């Protein structure tokens, strides 16, 4: 049940987070548009631009991403979908391990590498997540979190076309995530690489189909709901699930 409540934070917005060649251009556009569109939320100074991009993504999702993900979800048997998700998850674990080391969490980092080793061999190229079954917990790390851990503040909220919710800090993180992405680094054949990236995107999107309906039910203003959820979520993951309670002044 709560799985369904999982925020879009991890999902829709993050789907293509590693493909960023447009980033510098968009950063300039965001800065230009940002100047003329404010609505008073200090965490979201370029709300006008963000809302416009949110609209673009909602349109793309409705017409392309969601229908394809729904088809994927309906057609494929559950073990196949789990296998696909596991294979990409296994590749992610390598980058997660690097980030854990960069954050000084050696034990977690080596546990992540242990996961990759085990799942790539016993788990047959990552198809089966045997590491979780023997108690090597899966972690969630990326370069944005590493920067946060190092003390960099989040900066303004930015909603990117296709990639979705980020902060300025997480946008830089996304840039590094792209270079560290095993799919990009290992697969040099461009059509094969792009197919894998598309498959990963659809696999992720399909996992968040149930969350859609719940968010629609919950949100008064979907844009604000997704934004605030993303910001809360990022704060939470930087503290590995134990952020200090925010001060309540009322």
């Amino acid at each position, binding site marked *: *049940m*709560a799985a369904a409540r999982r925020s879009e934070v991890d999902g829709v917005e993050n789907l293509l987070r590693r493909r960023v060649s447009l980033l510098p251009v968009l950063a300039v556009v965001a800065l230009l548009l940002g100047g003329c569109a404010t609505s008073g939320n200090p965490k979201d100074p370029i709300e006008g631009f963000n809302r416009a991009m949110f609209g673009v993504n909602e349109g793309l999702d409705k017409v392309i991403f969601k229908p394809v993900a729904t088809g994927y979800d309906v057609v494929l048997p559950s073990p196949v979908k789990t296998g696909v998700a596991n294979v990409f998850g296994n590749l992610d674990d390598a980058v997660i391990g690097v980030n854990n080391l960069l954050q000084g969490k050696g034990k977690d980092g080596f546990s992540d590498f242990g996961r990759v080793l085990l799942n790539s061999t016993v788990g047959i190229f990552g198809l089966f997540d045997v590491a979780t079954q023997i108690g090597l917990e899966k972690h969630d790390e990326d370069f944005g979190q590493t920067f946060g851990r190092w003390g960099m503040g989040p900066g303004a909220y930015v909603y990117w076309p296709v990639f979705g919710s980020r902060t300025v800090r997480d946008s830089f993180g996304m840039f590094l995530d792209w270079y560290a992405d095993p799919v990009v680094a290992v697969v040099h054949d461009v059509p094969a690489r792009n197919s894998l990236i598309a498959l990963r995107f659809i696999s992720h999107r399909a996992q968040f189909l149930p969350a859609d309906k*719940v968010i629609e039910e*919950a949100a*008064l203003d979907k844009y604000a*709901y997704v934004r605030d959820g993303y910001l*809360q979520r990022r704060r939470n993951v930087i503290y590995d*699930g134990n*952020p200090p309670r925010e001060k309540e002044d009322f």
Partner: protein
Amino acid sequence: MKWLLGIIAALCLNAGALAQELAPDVLIKNVTNEVLDIVRKDKEIQSGSTRKAIDLVDAKVLPHFNFTRMTQLAVARDWRQASPEQQKTLTAEFRTLLVRTYSKALTEYKNQTVDFKPFKMQPAETDVKVRTLINQPGAKPIDLDYYLEKQPNGWKVYDIEVGGVSLVTNYRSEFSTQVRQGGIDGLIATLQKKNKTGEATVPKK
């Protein structure tokens, strides 16, 4: 026969008192298991009957929630400028919204399992966090944490966090924007409008 009825009545009362004094982690575990058992057997809820899910949530889950506290946390500093009457209306509308959301989530239940994390508390504590983990095949498990506060009538949930996102405080900036634009009554009107959409209605308490 009267003595037998007396004993049964006494046992029932006793059970009621015991239920109220359940430790917070036991309470969460019992309610979760009970609700999921029902959902697993109920084809209507699985096929998306929000109506039925709302009845279930109403009967099993709501008695353990403190909606006034939840609303206060979501409305935050604007709460003080609301009259007692407005506070009551806000609470009723926010309750409806949360119940609908929660029920919708239940209808999306597939085959996730719930782990209850180890729980420790000091006997004197009155504000605790109970942590659970939702496992789903092929995806990273999601943290689902409950914040509970001790009340005269037992432990009451006042916040729920999914993957670190509070279902209550996530409304704060939206609510504060609404209040800035249309006052407390503006926020109430927006909530009422939202609650009128959709197919299912939540019984008012």
